[in-house]
């Protein structure tokens, strides 16, 4: 009997009922990782010692009758962009090799306080820049549905660990789709909460005004449970929202969308979207109609410029955020043989430590912020951002939530788009507007595309600070699809490993 195929909610019940101990649950997952991660490569680092100590602590507290958080003892995979005290944190980059943060990210603090067992750190595109996890300096992660394919990115490691049953919960971060697109192509659930809902303290910044950490899992309810652990105001993050966290667990359990208006964004579908993706998306809409929702079409004309604006704002902020990797205080140092000055060592280190995509974006951002170009590039991009927010405002006046396919295609082959950055960027066409406006977005599986038998993601967007609405609609849709299929999508995933 193993629990690894259960949901986090089920594990929580089994732990509370003492059907399984947190230590056994952690060990089952470490066994699974040992079995399959050689093929998947979801993890960059395993913290067996820390995880088992935390599990033991939870078991002791439970034995002593202490009141515990629902997720106490449930294992989790942490994206390697989150600082965890004493644990290597690389952001998928050579430049941070060997750095062990002296502090915990607020998300990590909250996970620890809730008794969540952090198994290790997951692979990602270097500094969260990418849509395939191929940009990791430590080698790509493979999609558990087809090991020759990408698991999405940047949080491919987190999503793949869920799809490979190496962990029931994971933390991702989403700057332009890095939680939702990997969820879509791995048949899992990923949520980017409203900007400011989850503290960014300890999240190594890519683009500060767009970055947002969020929960990943195999079910909507599991993401909601994790959401409630990690969300909430944090005085250490000035952009953190100082308001109560919406009741997302209750919303995920509502299973009711009667009378709700679901807005389909005209611009995020049709041309450029894979046939199987559109088919599954439309079928899911039908399920929502059957459940009593009303479908309305909305138009967001400025979304056309979202991708271009995003590729100015995100690299601009990144060029500044990544300046600190200068070899002076931590991480890689190259060329310090006593013959060179600090400036040259900085330069050599950055040359050797950053990968191609990161350099591309630093150069792009540096250029966009340069005097004389600022207004034309960064300034215009900020104006586009305002227009996107207005598009959303108008759309939310007509609908409670908005929906679209999460990604235009299913998982592509590793290497297929590695040399074509623009083709790679287009993967995030449907997810980027959410970050630009700071609203909430969720991706949940809506079936397999007929042509390649790979998972398709359904994206639900909710207005800022109303994250409960996407959980309500997501939970309802998930239940309807599971009942239609007679099982979960994940139960159709190919078997991995020797055991």
């Amino acid at each position, binding site marked *: 009997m193993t629990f690894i195929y259960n949901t986090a909610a089920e594990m929580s019940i089994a732990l509370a009922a003492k059907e399984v101990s947190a230590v056994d649950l952690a060990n089952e997952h470490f066994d699974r990782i040992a079995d399959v991660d050689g093929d998947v490569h979801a993890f960059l680092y395993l913290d067996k010692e820390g995880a088992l100590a935390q599990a033991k602590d939870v078991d002791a507290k439970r034995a002593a009758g202490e009141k515990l958080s629902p997720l106490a003892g449930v294992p989790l995979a942490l994206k390697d962009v*989150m*600082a965890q005290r004493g644990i290597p*944190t690389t*952001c998928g980059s050579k430049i*941070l090799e060997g*750095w062990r*943060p*002296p*502090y915990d*990210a607020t998300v990590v603090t909250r996970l620890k306080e809730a008794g969540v067992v952090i198994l290790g750190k997951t692979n990602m595109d270097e500094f969260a820049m990418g849509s395939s996890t191929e940009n990791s300096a430590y080698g790509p992660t493979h999609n558990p549905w087809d090991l020759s394919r990408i698991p999405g990115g940047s949080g491919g490691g987190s999503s793949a660990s869920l799809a490979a049953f190496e962990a029931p919960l994971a933390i991702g971060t989403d700057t332009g789709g890095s939680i939702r697109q990997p969820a879509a192509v791995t048949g899992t659930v990923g949520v980017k909460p409203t900007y400011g809902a989850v503290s*960014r*303290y*300890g*999240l*190594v*910044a890519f*683009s*500060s*005004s767009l970055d947002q950490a969020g929960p990943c899992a195999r079910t909507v309810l599991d993401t909601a449970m994790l959401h409630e652990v990690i969300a909430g105001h944090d*005085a*250490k*993050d*000035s*952009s953190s929202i100082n308001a109560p966290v919406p009741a997302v667990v209750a919303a995920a359990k509502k299973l009711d969308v009667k009378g709700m208006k679901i807005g389909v964004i005209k611009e995020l579908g049709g041309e450029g979207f894979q046939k199987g993706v559109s088919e599954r998306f439309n079928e899911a809409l039908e399920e929502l109609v059957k459940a009593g929702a009303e479908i309305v079409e909305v138009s967001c004309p400025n979304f056309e410029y979202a991708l271009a604006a995003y590729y100015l704002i995100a690299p*601009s*902020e990144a*060029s*500044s955020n990544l*300046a*600190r*990797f*200068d070899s*002076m*205080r*931590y991480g890689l140092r190259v060329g310090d043989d006593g013959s060179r*000055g*600090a*400036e040259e060592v*900085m330069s050599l280190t950055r040359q050797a430590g950053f990968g191609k995509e990161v350099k591309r974006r630093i150069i792009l951002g*540096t250029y966009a*912020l*340069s*005097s004389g170009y*600022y207004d034309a590039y*960064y300034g215009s991009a900020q104006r586009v951002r305002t227009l996107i927010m207005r598009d959303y405002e108008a759309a939310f006046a007509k609908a409670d939530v908005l929906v679209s396919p999460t990604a235009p295609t299913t998982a592509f082959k590793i290497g297929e788009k590695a040399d074509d950055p623009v083709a790679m960027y287009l993967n995030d066409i449907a997810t980027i507007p959410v970050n630009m406006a700071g609203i909430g977005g969720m991706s949940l599986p809506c079936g397999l595309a007929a042509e390649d038998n790979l998972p398709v993601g359904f994206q639900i967007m909710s207005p800022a600070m109303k994250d409960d609405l996407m959980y309500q609609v997501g939970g309802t849709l998930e239940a309807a699809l599971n009942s239609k299929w007679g099982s979960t999508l994940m139960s159709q995933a190919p078997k991995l490993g020797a055991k």
Partner: protein
Amino acid sequence: MALTYDDVIAKYEPTLGLEVHVELNTNTKMFCGCSTEFGGEPNTQTCPVCLGLPGSLPVVNEVAIESAIKIGLALNCSIAPFSRFARKNYFYPDMPKDFQISQYDEPICVNGFLDVEIDTDEGVKTFRVEIERVHMEEDTGKSLHVGGSTGRIHGAEYSLLDYNRAGIPLMEIVTKMIPGTEKYAPQVARAYVTELRDILRSLGVSDVKMEQGSLRCDANVSLSPRGSGTLGTRSETKNVNSLRSVERAIHGEMIRQGNRLENGERIIQETRHFLEESGETRPGRSKETAEDYRYFQEPDLVPVAPDASWIEEIRATLPERPSVRRKRLQTEWAVPEKEMTAMINAELLDTVEATVKLGADPTKARTWWLGEISRVANEKEVEAISLMTPAQVAEIILLVASGELTDKLARQVVEGVIAGEGTPREVIEKRGLKVVSDDSALMAAIEAAIASQPDTAQRVRDGNIPAAGALIGAVMKATGGQADAARVRELLLKHLGQ
């Protein structure tokens, strides 16, 4: 033949610009909770935020905002209802994030002015220095370049970095261009920095110690040929560490620029370093290829939007401007210029004022604080104010005024209070320091003195009044100094028929 200062002024008109950086004296840094105390062991006052570790985020120190508003209001600025932080991007090892959080196009205070007075050939004249902006930023760490001959980064064997200073709140106060100062340019600059320092001190927002770097001045100066109507190329002199240096640096730089122009050489737009010993400047970084700092809004911080009512609250608590107060007190107390300056330099103006407010005579109050109490304080290497309170000093002065103590006795009371023997009353009690005011007791002592010095007494009777001194001295000695000498003299002379 090199041009002298007067030659330069005859041919050229100077334009000044002053940038003053002030470290605030908040307990914690601008964006984190680390201590700002000066002189700690290197790198002991740091945390992930001020070290710029990956993932860390800044949070604005509210007290620093309040200080910025105070400074703005004191300098007659408008306080922006909405201002932002920006990132100034450049690489340098002492800057942990390789960008500095500063303010760029939306500073917190704009458009102020400060009037300063200087002595001119035509008497005291007021110059108005217009303030362009006051903005907030964070300080950098400190580099110590070891090895090499210059102590500069070039040629050093290695460098040590101390990040204790990184993140200390800094205000930058920038003037508009200051034309029309003529030959008084160096004095105007000095008077401005002096006045600014006094205001900042009175606001209690900074230690304003130039020698410790909590107030730093960059002096810009340019020359244009008289009547040309053009503006010359400016240089920016850094490392100006005292008020006197401000004056000397501008003086020296004007001579240097004048001579270059005279020789047909051009002025290079550059940073220069002031050399304390020679009063000259040497070239630093050239600014001709303007560095591109790629400023953009700091996305990790929310805009600063102070409430209008909060600004008014702060305005209501602003202290009297130091120069105004100085003049008022000088007149009220009838203090000579030199004494006034001494009091200010000793930082005892507040203390003396507090003592006067308790009823003490201003001259006496000043004399006690600057004299006996300061003398003991210097001996003990402590602050005068730590030895006695204004209330104690006022009490003693009032006791002397009412005749209960003599000046001589008062000195003993002060000594006793400083020695920790208690309040002035208690010291008087314990030491038995009452003035002998009983005339019959005094008469007994007077008669005893006359009896022991009959010749002297006779000389007094004969009209040699100064001779009475010896008799008075004997009486004072007999009464242990507790008699009122004036009263003794009066009784003695009367007794001897004078």
